[in-house]
């Protein structure tokens, strides 16, 4: 851990906030993507049953 001096809060805050935001963005994207995939698979399966 580097010595951040008197600016530790700001620097750590900046890194923390950025990583949290990026992680949230990626996770939300992945969750939505999975949901969309599942919905599509369900719709396609049903479509085949209907002919």
């Amino acid at each position: 851990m580097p010595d951040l001096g008197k600016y530790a809060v700001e620097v750590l805050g900046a890194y923390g906030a950025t990583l949290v935001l990026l992680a949230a963005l990626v996770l939300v994207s992945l969750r939505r993507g999975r949901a969309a995939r599942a919905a599509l698979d369900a719709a396609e399966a049903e479509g085949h049953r209907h002919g």
Partner: protein
Amino acid sequence: MSLWQYANPVKFLTLSARLQPTLWAAAAICVGTALIWGFFFTPDDIRQGSTVKIIYLHVPAALMAINAWFMMLVTSLIWLVRRHHVSALAAKAAAPVGLVMTLIALITGALWGQPMWGTWWVWDPRLTSFLILFLFYLGYIALWEAVEDPDTAADLTSMLCLVGSVFAVLSRYAVKFWNQGLHQGTSVPVVTGGRSVADVFFYPLVLSMLGFGLLFVALVLYRTGTEIRLRRTRALQARMGRDL
């Protein structure tokens, strides 16, 4: 072989599925390396102390925030002129990414401002322009959400993007006229190649910018795929549900 063939959703999905693993891996490696390098292995600046480490987050995020809007402008134009659905959906997919990048730039900037300028926020032209950009993203996303019919939504948001871009440029001039500002000038002018940042700070910064760029591309490809699947689901359901 025309480039436009990738405007076909199926072709697009196939290609993007092939590209994505590489992109995600490269993005993770670049961002990870750059941030670890920047955070642990660069010295403090004489004037700014350890806050200089924020640059590896702030600048790439700011860059991507602007580029995302630019990309949306181009894809919107493609949709309006050639009506390729993938293009419109790519714009839709990019907006939240741009919004988050803008937010990161604003937050890291504010955190940087507190030690450097003694205040979280000043009405500096660059900062102000960014806030306006943030609003544009919000409005653009809200409009996508509010319109029921997907093609109409694509049309309307594309027009908003177009008109909004003109006004964004205008705002930039207006804001500069209104207040001269505290913010740094550009220190990495791509055109001239000259720069005002020492090499120790510069290399991780470039790596970080590359990483953020790759991350942006990977995210947009993935999210565009999601949008395509949602549209396809909708189409299938409509086909089955319309039995009246």
